[in-house]
C-alpha cells in the first residue's frame, strides 16, 4: 500500500501534465498542409514522389507532370524541409507505399544553413504515424534537440491565442477529419489535392538577398543526409532525379558564382552516386528554358513561381525528364 501511494502521486502528476500538454497541442497547433501531405504519402501509392523545399512545392505541379509522363505523382515538398526531413519522409513513404521515382529538389541554401528551430522543425515528425521511420527520425533529430520541440510543439504557437477559435473550428470540421485541402486557401496561395502549392498573383518581398555559397560552407549534416537519400534510392530500386528549379534572371546574375559552384557540387555527386541532375540555374537546361527566368513569373526574388507559370514549367520539366 505504501509503495502504491508513493508511486501514485508521480503517476497522477505526469498524467495531468500529459493531458494539459495534449490539450494545448490541440488548441494551438493549426492544421497545416504538412499533415495533409504526410497522410497522403502514407496512405496512397504514387509513381513519382516530389520532395524538397518550398521551391519544389510552388514550381512543380504533379498533375501537369502527369499529363506528359502518364504517371501518377504527388508533391510532398514544403518550406523548411531539410535533407534530414526529406530522408525520413522518403523512408516513411517507402515503408508504406513505395514510389518508383523520387524527384528531389536541391535548394543550395538549405545545404549551407543550419535549421532554425521553428514551428516547422518538428512538423513532419509530429504528423507522422508511429512506425520504424518515425522512431529513427526521432533519434536522428529530436533526441538531441530541446525537449519542448517534440513534446510540446504548441509552444511555437503560444502567442497566437486569437487563432484558437479558428483552430477549433477547423479541427472539428469534416475537412480536417477527412484530410481535406479546403482550409489551406489563403490570400497568397492555395494547396491543390496533388500537393502542388499554387501561388496567387501579387508580389511578395522583392529585395534580393545575396545567396552565398562556397564549398566550405556546406553543412556536413545536409550533405550526409542527401547521400543517404541517394543510397537509399539505389538500395530500394527507386529512380532518383535531382532538380534545381529556376530563379529570376536578376537573382541569378547577382549570385552567379554561388549558383555555379552549388550546381557543380551536385553535378559531381550525380556522377558519384549515379543519378540524374536537372539544373535550371545553369548549363544547358538554363539555356534551353530561359523563358522561365523572367522575374514577372515569380512572386519573389528567391524563386517562388506563380501557379500558371509553374504549370507551364512543370510541362517543360516533364518533357525534359522524358528525354533523359
Amino acid at each position: 500500500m505504501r509503495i502504491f501511494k508513493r508511486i501514485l502521486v508521480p503517476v497522477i502528476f505526469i498524467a495531468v501534465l500529459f493531458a494539459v500538454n495534449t490539450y494545448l497541442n490541440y488548441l494551438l497547433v493549426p492544421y497545416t498542409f504538412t499533415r495533409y501531405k504526410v497522410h497522403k504519402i502514407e496512405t496512397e501509392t504514387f509513381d513519382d514522389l516530389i520532395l524538397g523545399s518550398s521551391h519544389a512545392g510552388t514550381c512543380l505541379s504533379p498533375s501537369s507532370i502527369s499529363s506528359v509522363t502518364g504517371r501518377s505523382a504527388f508533391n510532398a515538398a514544403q518550406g523548411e524541409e531539410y535533407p534530414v526531413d526529406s530522408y525520413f519522409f522518403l523512408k516513411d513513404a517507402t515503408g508504406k507505399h513505395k514510389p518508383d521515382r523520387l524527384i528531389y529538389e536541391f535548394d543550395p541554401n538549405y545545404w549551407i544553413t543550419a535549421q532554425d528551430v521553428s514551428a516547422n522543425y518538428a512538423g513532419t515528425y509530429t504528423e507522422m504515424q508511429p512506425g520504424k521511420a518515425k522512431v529513427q527520425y526521432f533519434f536522428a533529430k529530436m533526441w538531441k534537440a530541446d525537449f519542448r520541440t517534440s513534446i510540446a510543439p504548441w509552444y511555437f504557437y503560444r502567442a497566437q491565442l486569437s487563432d484558437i477559435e479558428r483552430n477549433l473550428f477547423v479541427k472539428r470540421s469534416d475537412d480536417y477529419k477527412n484530410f481535406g485541402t479546403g482550409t489551406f486557401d489563403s490570400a497568397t496561395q492555395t494547396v491543390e489535392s496533388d500537393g502542388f502549392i499554387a501561388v496567387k498573383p501579387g508580389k511578395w518581398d522583392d529585395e534580393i538577398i545575396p545567396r552565398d555559397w562556397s564549398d566550405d560552407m556546406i553543412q556536413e549534416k545536409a550533405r550526409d543526409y542527401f547521400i543517404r537519400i541517394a543510397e537509399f534510392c539505389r538500395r530500394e530500386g527507386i529512380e532518383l532525379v535531382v532538380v534545381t528549379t529556376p530563379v529570376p534572371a536578376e537573382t541569378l546574375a547577382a549570385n552567379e558564382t554561388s549558383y555555379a559552384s552549388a550546381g557543380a557540387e551536385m553535378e559531381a555527386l550525380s556522377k558519384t552516386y549515379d543519378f540524374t541532375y536537372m539544373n535550371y540555374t545553369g548549363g544547358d537546361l538554363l539555356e534551353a528554358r530561359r523563358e522561365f527566368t523572367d522575374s514577372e513569373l515569380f512572386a519573389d526574388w528567391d524563386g517562388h513561381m506563380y501557379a500558371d507559370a509553374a504549370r507551364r514549367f512543370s510541362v517543360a520539366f516533364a518533357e525534359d525528364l522524358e528525354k533523359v
Partner: protein
Amino acid sequence: MSFVSIEFMVFTAVCVAGCYMIPKKYQWVWLLVFSYIYYLAAGPSYLFFILFATTATYLGGLWAEAGARWAVPAVLLADFGMLAFIKYTNFILGNINGLFGTNIRELKLLLPLGISFYTFQATGYLLDVHWKRCKAERNPFRFALFLAFFPQIMQGPIGRYSRLAESLYAEREFDMARIERGLYRIVWGFFKKIVIADNAVLYVDAIFDNYNTMPGYGIMGILLYGAQLYADFSGGIDIVIGIAEMLGVTLDENFTQPFFATSITDFWHRWHITLGTWMKDYLFYPVSLSRWMGKFGKWCRTKFGKNIGRALPICLANIIVFLVVGIWHGPAWHNIFYGLYNGVIIGVSGLLAKNYRDWKKKFGIEKDSRLFYCFQVIRTFILVNISWYLDRAGSTHQALIMMRDSITKFRIGVDIIDASSTWAGSAYAPLIAALFGCLVVLIHSILRERKIDTRSLLMKKPVVIRCLVLFLLLMSLVVIGNKPLSQGGFIYANF
C-alpha cells in the same frame, strides 16, 4: 549532451534509477561508467586530455605521499601546461604576430569539455595531498570518478577531494525525499536558464553587437547581462547540484545571493565560490606566504611603516590572483583588465580598511545601520556592473566606448531587437518574461538571505501545493521561455 535535450534527460533518469537498483558496492562504478559515457558523447577526441590529467595526477598523488619532492611541481606543470597550451597558444601567437609582424599560423585547438574544471580539481587534490590535508587515493578508478563525475564536469562546481570523496564513493539508499529535493533544484535551474538567461540574451547580444550603430543602450545591456550571466551560470549549477543530489552526492555551493554582497571581496565570496576558494587556497596563500613575498613585506615595512607595509604584499597577491582569474576567463586583454579591476579594488580596500573604520567612527555610522548596509549593497552592485562591461565586451576599446556612451547617449528601449523574430511577435515579451523571472529569483534570494531553506519549506507543504509549484515552473519554461537559440548552451561550459 545539451542539458535541455531529451537525450540528457533520459540519460540522467537511467543513471539515477539504475544507481539504486544495482548492488550498493558498485554504485560508484556505475557513476564512473555514466560519467565516461557522458564525456565520450561530447567527442571521443577529448578523451585523451582527461585521461592524461587523471593518470598524471593519480600517480603524482601517490609519489607525493611517498615523499618524492619533484612529484608535485612536475605534475602541476603537466596539468597546467596542458590547460595553458590549449587555452592560450593562439592568443600568444596572435600577439607575437601583431607585435613583430610575423605570420605564424594559429593552431586549430578545440577546448575539451570541462578541462578547466577538472584541471582545477586535479591540482587542488595534489596540493591537498602534498600539504597532508587528505590521503592520496589508491584506486585509480575511484580517482577517475572524482575528476569526471558527469554533472559537474561541464561547468563545476570545482570539488574538493576531502569533501566530495565521502559522498561520491558512499553506499546510498534510495530516498524519495532526496529525489524530490533534487528535482525542485533541477527545475529551478531550468527556470533561471530558459526564462531569464535565454530571454535576456536577445537584448544583451543586440546591444553589444551593435554598440557602434545603436549606441547608448549600455546600462540596459549591462543590467540584463548581469541577469543573464547569473541566471545562466547559477541555473546551470542548480541543475548540476540537483542531479548530484538525486545521486546522493553533495556538491559545494557555487553561489550565495551574490547581489546582496556588501563589497567586492564579499561578492567574490558569493559568486563562483568554488573558483574563489580554489584561488584563495592554492594561489593566494602560497603566493602570499612565499619567501620572496616575505622579503617584499619586510622591505615594505621598513619603507612605509607597519600598517601599509603589512597590507602591500597582500594587495599584490590579490592583484596576482585576479589577474589569473581574468586570464582564465579568456585569453584577451579585456578579460585581463576585468581581473585587474577586481584585484585593484580588493587590494585598495584592504589597504584602506583601517581608514574605513576610522571614517565610520567619524561619521557616527552604526555597525548594523540598515541604511549603510543598503548603501554598501548598491555601491557593490554598481562596481560589479562596471566590471561586466569589460567581461562582456569583445575588446577593452569596446568596453570603454560603451561606458562613455552609456552616460553621454543614454537610451533605453526594446526596438533593438526584431519583434517579429521573438517567440511572441513582440519586442517587449522576452523582456517582460526575463524581468518576471528576475522578480521570482529576487524573492527567492531574499528568503535565502534570511537563512530560510526554501526547499525544506516547500517539502513541508501538502502534496497538492508541491505539485502545483512544480507544474507552474515546468509550464513557465514552455509558456514564457525563449525558444532554443542557435548559440545555445551554457556560458561557463566554454571555459
